[in-house]
């Protein structure tokens, strides 16, 4: 087997070491924003030098050394700019002047990457900011890569990340794990951000948009890292399981022309059965811990779908039972909407449609296009082709996803055309 080229080995190594080094620098000096800048510069220097001269014996020590040197240089030039000569200034320089040699072992703390994740996903940041910052600081992606993934110019993304760092600095969030009281809420924010990243990546078809496909894999990588850091946390396990079980279906999800293929029509031979097996095992491990959370339940539902060899073999009564539990924990009307589909599969379309009528009374979801989508599916099952088509078209007008719109219009067209496809 030929060795991996130096370029990609360097790239993988830098991605892996970036959060560790950033964690160590930020923990030592407290200024996350300045630390992130310094580590970025060290990574750029490493990318150039290591591909030319080879990877040093102590790569993490090298990065740490260079990052601290950069920080010291910044502080020195900042101080000389302001021409402060009092003792405070001298103390700061003295403290930062000690930069360990390049071969010293990195003073890494087990918790550093976890702290980084909590910081980057802080609820004070908007989701797009949190996503960008997480991909940079924890994922080790370059600004250009993140910009490309989200289809914005690099300068725009650079500013977005910079502003996110300034928000963190301005908010005074300490570089430390959250206390027990807010831990659950903060972890929820982390899980949410990782899931948003996954969803963005999962949207693209595998062939056409290779860069966006990497976002899903990146989210899985980060979720795996989180799971390794918190092996006993059932929701972190649940999230990783959910991602694996969902991603397993990726290849079957889009057709040759990029069109969306729904679950009941997918070619299950194209599913990734290794990922399914791993996801199922994780779900079982998470559920066995007793505490049941929403990600675990969603993962359990995905597992039931993925374990069916054919769509007709799907254990819908079990899915319905899982939705019943999910409903007790979550007030989200979208859950009720998905449960209505399960009810329809177990008790017939009329029963599902009756639930949708109830949801019409919920202000949070009334008029939402997904209500039209589900209604259309159930009316189609009932045999009411005309009304189903009308609802598909109504939904198509309000969805914000082009592939989804095309799917909905196609379904409407199938119902109206004389040939039943």
């Amino acid at each position, binding site marked *: 087997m030929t060795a991996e080229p130096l370029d990609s080995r360097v790239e993988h190594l830098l991605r892996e070491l970036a959060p560790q080094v950033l964690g160590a620098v930020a923990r030592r000096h407290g200024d996350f924003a300045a630390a992130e800048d310094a580590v970025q510069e060290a990574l750029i220097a490493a990318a150039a030098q290591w591909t030319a001269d080879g990877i040093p014996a102590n790569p993490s020590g090298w990065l740490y050394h260079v990052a601290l040197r950069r920080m010291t240089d910044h502080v020195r030039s900042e101080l000389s700019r302001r021409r402060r000569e009092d003792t405070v200034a001298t103390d700061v320089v003295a403290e930062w002047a000690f930069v360990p040699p390049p071969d010293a072992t990195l003073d890494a703390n087990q918790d550093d990457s976890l702290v980084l994740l909590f910081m980057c996903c802080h609820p004070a940041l908007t989701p*797009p900011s949190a996503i960008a910052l997480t991909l940079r600081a924890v994922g080790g992606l370059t600004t250009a890569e993140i910009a490309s993934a989200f289809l914005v110019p690099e300068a*725009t993304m650079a*500013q977005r990340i910079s502003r996110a760092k300034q928000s963190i600095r301005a908010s005074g969030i300490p570089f430390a794990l959250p206390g027990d009281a807010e831990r659950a809420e903060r972890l929820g924010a982390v899980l949410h951000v990782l899931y948003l990243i996954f969803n963005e990546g999962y*949207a693209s078809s595998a062939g056409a948009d290779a860069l966006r496909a990497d976002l899903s894999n990146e989210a899985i990588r980060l979720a795996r890292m989180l799971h390794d850091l918190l092996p006993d946390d059932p929701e972190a396990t649940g999230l990783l399981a959910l991602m694996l079980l969902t991603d397993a279906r990726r290849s079957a999800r889009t057709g040759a022309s990029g069109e969306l*293929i*729904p679950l009941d029509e997918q070619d299950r031979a194209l599913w990734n059965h290794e990922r399914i097996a791993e996801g199922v095992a994780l779900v079982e491990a998470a559920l066995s811990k007793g505490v049941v959370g929403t990600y675990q339940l969603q993962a359990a539902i995905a597992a039931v779908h993925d374990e069916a060899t054919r769509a007709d073999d799907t254990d819908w009564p079990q899915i319905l039972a899982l939705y019943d539990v999910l409903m007790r924990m979550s007030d989200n009307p979208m859950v009720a909407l998905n449960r209505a589909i399960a009810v329809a599969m177990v008790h017939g379309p009329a029963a599902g449609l009756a639930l949708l009528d109830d949801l019409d009374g919920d202000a949070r979801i009334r008029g939402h296009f997904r209500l039209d989508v589900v209604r259309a599916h159930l009316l189609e099952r009932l045999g009411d082709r005309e009304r189903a088509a009308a609802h598909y078209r109504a939904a198509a007008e309000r*969805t*914000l996803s082009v592939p*989804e719109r095309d799917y909905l219009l196609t379904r409407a067209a199938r119902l109206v055309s004389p040939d039943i496809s």
Partner: protein
Amino acid sequence: MKYILMMHAPRGNGEYQIDGWSPDDFKAHIAFMRDLNRDLIERGELVGAEGLTPPGQARVVCAGANGAPVVTDGPFPEAKEFLVGYWIVETDTPERAYEIAGRASTAPGPGGAPLNMPIEVRQVMSAPPTDL
């Protein structure tokens, strides 16, 4: 959320005849656009922006009977307005998109007075599809 902001101008004798403005007016207009774009980049909101060449330079292309393109002068003479340029922005709320459009609308024209041009704002379909 991504939005497209489209700046339209009336054809014919409308105010947006930049080739008839004084050099100072023109300079102020360009500076306004440059400042707006720079601010949007700094806020992490700009996805793209372009000014378009005037309608006199537009062509309308249709495939002909044999598939070859047929090129005619354009745009359609019935159109009362033409597209001057556009921005694509990514904002946290629709209100912020309207705010940006409102600012763009005040771009200065003759004598430095704000043009108050209409800006059409439409959301771009950039969402990922839901798992089916």
